[in-house]
């Protein structure tokens, strides 16, 4: 991806990342009506559309902030594809079918398709990770929260009243436990690409 040219619409991504209200407003004014129409025409309503749009923007935000998302295609196409994908998945979920990811034929040379695919896999992984994290025991949850918030393991150990070595070992084992939960979930195997 490195050599591809960044599209000028990167400004929308940067604007989201900076929580710039003008840019967010512009996204709603310029790109959201098309999504709302699509969802309404495909057995949805305005409320559903509102949720899909919001979730999609949060996913883009997360990918931008965690993975330095670089837009190589127009925002319009990318955003629409993402919302569409999300909506189709919602429909499938509500009709109790398995959600399969790879059923659409992707033309790999299409930047928008490819990027939207990447982002939606990213988003589903995030959701899966969050779901599995919630299943961890409280001791692990607290330790991991403290570890990533405080950063210095010495301080973490101190705040939890344990030794540095123990806190360190616990951290590895808690993430290890999480790794096992994630790898054991059926969703994970569908997401692996």
């Amino acid at each position, binding site marked *: 991806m490195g050599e591809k040219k960044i599209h000028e619409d990167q400004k929308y991504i940067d604007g989201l990342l900076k929580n710039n209200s003008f840019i967010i*407003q512009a996204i709603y004014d310029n790109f959201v009506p098309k999504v709302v129409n699509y969802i309404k025409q495909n057995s949805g309503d305005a409320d559903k559309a509102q949720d899909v749009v919001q979730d999609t923007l949060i996913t883009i935000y*997360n990918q931008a902030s965690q993975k330095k998302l670089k837009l190589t295609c127009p925002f319009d196409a990318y955003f629409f594809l993402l919302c569409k994908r999300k909506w189709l998945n919602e429909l499938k979920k509500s009709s109790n079918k398995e959600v399969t990811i790879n059923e659409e034929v992707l033309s790999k040379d299409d930047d928008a398709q490819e990027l939207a695919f990447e982002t939606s896999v990213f988003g589903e992984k995030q959701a899966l990770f969050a779901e599995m*994290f919630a299943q961890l025991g409280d001791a692990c949850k607290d330790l991991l*929260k403290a570890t*990533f918030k405080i950063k210095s393991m010495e301080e973490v150990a101190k705040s939890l009243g344990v030794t540095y070595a123990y806190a360190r070992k616990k951290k*590895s084992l808690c993430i290890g436990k999480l790794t096992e939960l994630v790898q054991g979930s059926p969703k994970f195997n569908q997401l692996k690409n």
Partner: protein
Amino acid sequence: MEDQNYILFEAYLANELPKEEVAEFENRLKTDAEFSQAFNTYKELSAFLQHEFENEETSAAFKTNLKKISSEHFSKNTVAEEMVKPKARKLNFYKYAIAACVVLLFGIFMFNQFSTPTYSDYNDYGAISLSVRGENDALLKKAETAFNNKNFAEAEAGFAKLLNSDSNNTELKLYRAISNIELNHFETADGLLEEIRSGNSAYKNKATWYLALSKLKQKETEACLEILQTLPEDADDFNRAQKLMDKLD
């Protein structure tokens, strides 16, 4: 996977493995598929957790703001839609008449709401393109981009810095003033605009117009009207100013 492996993953990611062990570790990643898959998931989870907890507050702020804009956007559109297609079925004439009155009253009410002019009706300045004047190119470009992206805090910082070395640049002063209106720093904005107005530059009338808009944003209607009246007929914004005055009266 054995516990020992997770301890190894953590040490590797923290760059705390001794050199010999690093080579051994990396070799194992290449040859042991299960080990390598577990490591990749472990690494992804670490990145996920790090992001999740380190940026908890910024993410929460983003979500709150997003929800606000989203619900404003959607409530606006639902109202518009319901007004277009009122759900009336088996209504008799009187009911129609009553409904019509209500719609009419509501319409008048909405019309009055929307016809009160606000600053945001007028802050539609297009993208700016600043003339290049030499050594401060990069900073200038940065301020210009920030302004065009409506990132006014950054634009303000940029313009302020540029004005330090080019204190007589009226164009920069004007854009700095607009940035400050956007940021609600009215004292700075008004000061700058007064300064441009009292001078004799090409931006004199623009400054008057924006000073009026600044007063409008501060809800000082009287002051706004007074300033608008001083705008000469040959000013770019003369017509808009006249219309604004009509609405404010």
